[in-house]
């Protein structure tokens, strides 16, 4: 019992430390001086990096288990922030986030897997496909805007056909260019320039961005017709989407032409390229994008859709477009999160992306507070460390079957929270960097240039 208490205290301390870390990171990012900001972010990165490398006795300060939790928390932050944009800020109840997460993971994994196996087609096809498809979507969007009342399904068909053409062109391009690039990879004994670790790092970053863009593209095509549904129906449709994606993963080697994904057996041999630097980098990137988007005119338009669609229309807001925008950006975050996860874990199994697990980001978003970015970030870290770090290890000391109680205790905790604090842990409170920028919300100066008094 003595050992348990010590462990309990240590884990609670860890959770507190992690939350303090999140708070400090957001605080320092919110400083007005650019120098302080950059130094602070570097310091926040360095602290963990030091804890990962410096050894106390035999093992580093942060053991492998904790590192795993940390990486999971980073990916979960990205996925959950995306979902908060869709559900918390735009009011569209989506269960599809996990599907986009899976798409991102598999896309990025396939690109780097092929690359380390001296096949550049993954990068070429996905990269060219995403770029070409994005360009076509943008051009068609500009074109369609000239016409009044184009039915959604007609627009969808046009987009779909053009994206398929872009995909076919990308495959053709990739196959044509592969022979030219193949010699540059060299052989196993004498690696060529493209097989060097530095190039691999670049490929990884590109893969993550392409994975995000690919997930965003899919969400655009899926969201265009489906977002016209009311919120509940939209939720069901997105649940269907997650199931479809999962089924495709299970059968990726039979009905899809990707034998390297090995279907239900799981994809192995993905290079473990996610270092703490990349996890931290992408997480901070997502946080910055999210915050800059929310505190802008675009963000207010997204919010207005959640508040009252009819009123938003009457204010001149293109409701359909902003629903789609939030959905696409949210999926982009999920795709990047998936890429980071895939290269951390090195093994992808369709079971990870089943729709039941897909409720996790939803739980985190609600737990942290709908419409609170800070809540999402804090809940992502707190939740992982609570569920995996505390409960799993603590309960395993009580007996081999005891960890099963995890999924009794944690739903109970969730239930308690919903009863006691229905707005989520943080409600709509924001910390530091994620608070509304001061220049935009400061009160009117005393010597105001007030115009003529009202006619009241």
């Amino acid at each position, binding site marked *: 019992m003595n050992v348990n208490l010590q462990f309990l205290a240590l884990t609670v301390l860890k959770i507190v430390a992690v939350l303090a870390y999140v708070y400090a990171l957001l605080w320092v990012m919110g400083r007005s001086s650019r120098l302080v900001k950059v130094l602070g972010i570097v310091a926040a990165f360095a602290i963990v990096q030091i804890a990962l490398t410096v050894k106390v006795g035999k093992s580093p300060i942060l053991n492998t288990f904790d590192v795993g939790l940390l990486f999971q928390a980073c990916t979960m932050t990205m996925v959950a922030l995306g979902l908060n944009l869709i559900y918390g800020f735009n009011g569209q109840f989506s269960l599809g986030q996990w599907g986009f997460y899976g798409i991102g993971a598999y896309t990025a994994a396939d690109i780097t897997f092929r690359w380390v196996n001296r096949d550049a087609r993954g990068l070429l096809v996905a990269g060219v496909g995403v770029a070409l498809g994005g360009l076509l979507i943008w051009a068609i969007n500009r074109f369609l805007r000239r016409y009044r009342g184009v039915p959604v399904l007609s627009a969808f068909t046009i987009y779909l056909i053009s994206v398929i053409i872009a995909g076919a062109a990308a495959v053709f391009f990739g196959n044509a260019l592969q022979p030219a690039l193949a010699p540059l990879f060299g052989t196993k004994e004498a690696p060529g320039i493209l097989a060097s670790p530095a190039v691999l790092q670049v490929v990884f970053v590109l893969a993550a961005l392409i994975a995000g863009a690919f997930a965003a593209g899919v969400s655009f095509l899926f969201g265009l017709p489906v977002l016209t549904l009311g919120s509940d129906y939209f939720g069901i449709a997105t649940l269907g989407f997650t199931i479809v994606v999962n089924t495709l993963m299970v059968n990726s080697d039979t009905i899809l032409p990707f034998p390297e994904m090995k279907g239900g057996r799981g994809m192995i041999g993905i290079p473990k390229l996610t270092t703490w630097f990349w996890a931290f980098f992408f997480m901070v990137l997502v946080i910055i*994008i999210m915050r800059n988007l929310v505190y802008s005119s675009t963000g207010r338009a997204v919010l*207005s859709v959640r*508040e009252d669609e009819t009123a938003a229309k*009457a*204010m001149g807001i293109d409701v359909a477009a902003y629903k789609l925008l939030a959905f696409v950006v949210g999926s982009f975050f999920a795709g990047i999160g998936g890429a980071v996860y895939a290269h951390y874990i090195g093994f992808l199994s369709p079971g990870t992306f089943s729709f039941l697990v897909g409720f996790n980001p939803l739980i985190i978003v609600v737990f942290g507070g709908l419409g609170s970015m800070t809540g999402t970030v804090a809940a992502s870290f707190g939740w992982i460390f609570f569920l995996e770090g505390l409960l799993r290890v603590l309960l395993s000391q009580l007996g081999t079957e005891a960890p099963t109680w995890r999924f009794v205790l944690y739903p109970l905790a969730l239930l308690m929270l919903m009863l006691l604090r229905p707005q989520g842990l943080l409600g709509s409170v924001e910390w530091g960097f994620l608070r509304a920028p001061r220049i935009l919300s400061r009160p009117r100066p005393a010597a105001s240039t007030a115009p003529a*008094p009202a006619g009241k």
Partner: protein
Amino acid sequence: MSATVAAQESPPVLQTLRLTKAFGGLRAVNEFDLTVRRGELAGLIGPNGAGKTTVFNMISGLYVPTSGDIRFEGESIVGLEPHEVTQAGIGRTFQNIRLFPNLTVLDNVRIAYHPHAGYTMFDALLRTRRFEAKERELTERARDFLAIFNLDRYQNELARNLPYGEQRRVEIARALACAPRLLLLDEPAAGMNPGEIVTLMELIHFIRDRFNLTILLIEHQMRLVMGICERITVMDFGEVIARGTAEEIQNDPRVIEAYLGRGAAGRAHAAVSARAA
């Protein structure tokens, strides 16, 4: 009455031509003709279920008319999306106040400026200088705008926390922030006490002069309509039953019949004539 005379000669801002909307077998609005001229303060009245709000919803693009045409400044706006109608220059308020309840009053107004924010999403993502400048300008503009309505003291208050009458004023201010040339007010006096109605009448007069507006309003409160509207159109069962000035409407037997019932029409008419005499 000189304003009325001037309005008679000014060009029409809004015209509906044989406007019809059918919900299944029910013709909510039937062959509705209406002309609103520049600078006019026109009223649309009628008993409950007469189809007034349906007309508004068709003008603002929320409903697509079954047949007929709507012309705004000479151009047909049938088939435009609601946000396009707003951007074309028609603002509106709603019968049951539709503010953005969980946003501040300032944000409520800033959202109305969104179509003319002057920067793109990428400016916002990269926090470019253009973003900083335009965002500050837009915020200042919104504050000045709220000051016109004496609402600037509420600017950081959530819209849902405001008293009812103030919420109405915020809604009208927000509609005006869209810079409309025609403003549609759907029962602005609903749920207001007589004192608040007087304030509202002053406000409506004030905004028309200040923003050079044409206003079309739906109302139940006869006091408000008779007090401020220069020309009134009366609807019942989706059709126009009378048009004219306040006095003409008050004495029209068909209007009295629609409001008070057939039997009452004769007596009321007699009473009105007696009072006039």
